[in-house]
């Protein structure tokens, strides 16, 4: 029991050390500017949408499938959902329901085509993102504008309530359902999973459809945050998910010490803390992209080579011991 508790404590520290260190570092560098309550709240709020989108991406990435159309789904659902909400006069509830439905329908189509065409997901989704971006351009070329009374979901505490709900949903889905277990089994080894009787196409289809729920909620938050969204073209929606993507990669690294659902929250929060710290430091936004890219690269390089680093240190230690023995 004591060992278990100790291991739990160590893993908790390992999970949280990164964001804590980054906060502390920038607190020192900015003379406390980045440590204000408001800054932490803003950082937390800004990381909600990317966290939810990262939950959508993580499920598919577990299977080694990259969904490039996620940004297109979020944008389409947000624009069409917002306009339909205004048309039907259904308010925020209507916005949520419509965005969810559109998100699920689109991702179900993605999963269907992925299974039917039997080509890499990355290929299917590059084609689909062009189509998903065009749909709102045809129906609502001017995009969507919604008034402030429908956008409260993006403000606190509502966005955190949404995050909590989606977190619990993701946690239960990924860890406590047969679907989650099957997903991880298939991600581990397709051949073994198939041999064990798992139907890969059904799991993949479910995975995409479920990701649509997260993307639908992401769409609600996206339109609520901005109030107005314009249509894009020529893969203009892809940058929407890059931040979430960075969070997912960091989360996979952190998932060694904690559950993936917690890792996604911590990972995305860490990336947002990093960029806001740079803002507080007065660095231009362009430096943020360089710093985030470098930070993630260095972190993943270290994590990918931990065994080699440990071996290198042990070799050095042994060499020093032998030297000392020889000199003695």
């Amino acid at each position, binding site marked *: 029991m004591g060992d278990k508790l100790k291991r739990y404590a160590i893993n908790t520290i390992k999970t949280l050390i990164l964001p804590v260190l980054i906060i502390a570092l920038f607190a020192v560098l900015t003379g406390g500017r980045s440590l204000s309550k*408001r800054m932490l709240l803003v950082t937390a709020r800004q990381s909600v949408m990317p966290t939810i989108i990262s939950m959508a991406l993580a499920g598919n990435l577990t299977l080694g499938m990259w969904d490039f159309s996620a940004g297109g789904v979020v944008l389409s659902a947000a624009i069409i959902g917002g306009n339909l909400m205004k048309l039907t006069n259904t308010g925020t509830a209507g916005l949520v329901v419509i965005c969810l439905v559109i998100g699920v329908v689109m991702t179900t189509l993605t999963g269907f085509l992925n299974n039917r065409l039997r080509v890499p997901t990355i290929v299917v989704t590059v084609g689909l993102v062009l189509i998903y971006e065009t749909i709102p351009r045809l129906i609502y070329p001017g995009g969507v504008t919604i008034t402030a009374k429908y956008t409260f979901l993006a403000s606190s505490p509502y966005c955190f309530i949404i995050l909590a709900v989606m977190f619990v949903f993701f946690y239960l889905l990924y860890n406590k359902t047969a679907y989650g277990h099957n997903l991880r089994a298939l991600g581990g080894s397709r051949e073994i999973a198939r041999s064990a009787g798992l139907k890969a196409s059904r799991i993949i289809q479910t995975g995409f459809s479920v990701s649509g729920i997260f993307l639908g909620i992401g769409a609600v938050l996206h339109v609520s945050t*901005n109030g107005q969204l314009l249509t894009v073209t020529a893969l203009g929606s892809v940058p929407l998910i890059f931040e979430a993507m960075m969070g997912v990669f960091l989360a996979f690294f952190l998932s060694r010490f904690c559950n993936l659902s917690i890792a996604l929250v911590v990972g995305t929060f860490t990336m947002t803390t990093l960029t806001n710290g740079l803002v507080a430091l007065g660095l231009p936004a362009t430096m943020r992209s360089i710093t985030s890219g470098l930070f993630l690269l260095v972190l993943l390089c270290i994590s990918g080579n931990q065994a080699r680093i440990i071996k290198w240190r042990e070799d050095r230690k042994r060499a020093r011991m032998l030297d000392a023995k020889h000199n003695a």
Partner: protein
Amino acid sequence: MKKLMRSICLVLATVMLLTCLVGCGKGAATSSTPSPSGFATPTPKPASDDSGAAGGDEASGSKIKIPDNLPRYRIGVMYYTFTDKLGSQMKNALDYLAGTFNVEFVYIEATYSSEAGMAALETTLQTGLDGIIAVTSGVPFVEACKKAGDVPCVSIQIEPIDEQVAKDMAAYANYLGAVCENDFQVGVNAIDALYASGVRNLGIVGLTPGLARSHDERIRGVKAALDKYSDMKLVAEDYTMAEYSKSISSFAAAYPEMDGMFCSQGVEALYQTMNTEGLIGDVKLATVDISESTGDYFDNGTLVSIAGGQYGTTMIGFAILYNYLHDGTRIIPDTSVTLRRPFVEVKSSEEYEQYLNYVDSTIPVYTADEIAAMIRGFNPEVTFETFTKAADGYSLADIVSRHSDSF
């Protein structure tokens, strides 16, 4: 059997798609369809008929006779996107003119990629254009038009990056000139307005540098104006396209002393975020591009200055081109000099109401008759001086005075 069925389905899908495309292609051949929510189509009759057309009466105090049987011209219009507010206003304004001047407009979306824009331009020129108005400037643009058969071209809403490029472009016979808003001045005016309202700690958000020169010029104007005021300082700046909301929240958190903001692109996200972050009353705002919430934010004291109405420049660009197409008139004699026009600046909610009525309503900022009055073939009194005076005088008061009888 399954594979055969699959192949048949795919072939059928391809055939269906191609059939749809045939329909789309034919439908798209006439590109200037009247915009359903755009400007009222003027009655394409000579102004002397006094038919009470939505285009209004004569311009410049004299009746302009627009012939009925004008030759048909095919004019390309290239802009970043026609689905945003400004792009749709531009398209509506041109569609409005299409009937009177018997013009078919072919719209080309350049996006923000210069390579993709270049490819789209070259290809559209191949479809046979009589002229082109484009939000691009530079020798490659003029060269591409020259290669396509000396197609006359006008740059709108962007100017040559420096004097040397302007001279190089002016050396081309098919280049008719550039007309753009005075983005630098609008940046200066914004800072002056913010300073006058008491702002001393400024934040700037804008488009990524290098994507759109007009935005870069606005920021240059802002920074030049900042140098005038020793007690006004820049506390934060961010130039990440489509992340204004995030930037403003971060600024608000990191720099509580910030009491004013300039944004080079006035999107709704600005207002939304200021509301969410509780900045109303604490932070003043100046921006460009007028949107739906403008009136509300004048009322609550947030907005001190906003500029818009840029689509008028497109109409002037059309006038420059049409002068040449009609009878070879080069209304701008020295094409190395850019014709700079003011924005429509709005400084109160009353002015915003006027803006809604006179700029963003059924009648565009220039009626068909007023544009016709700028064409020497219809109005022999037009000179470069009168032309530029009409362009220079552009303001909300000017539009109101010209169109007050129309409402």
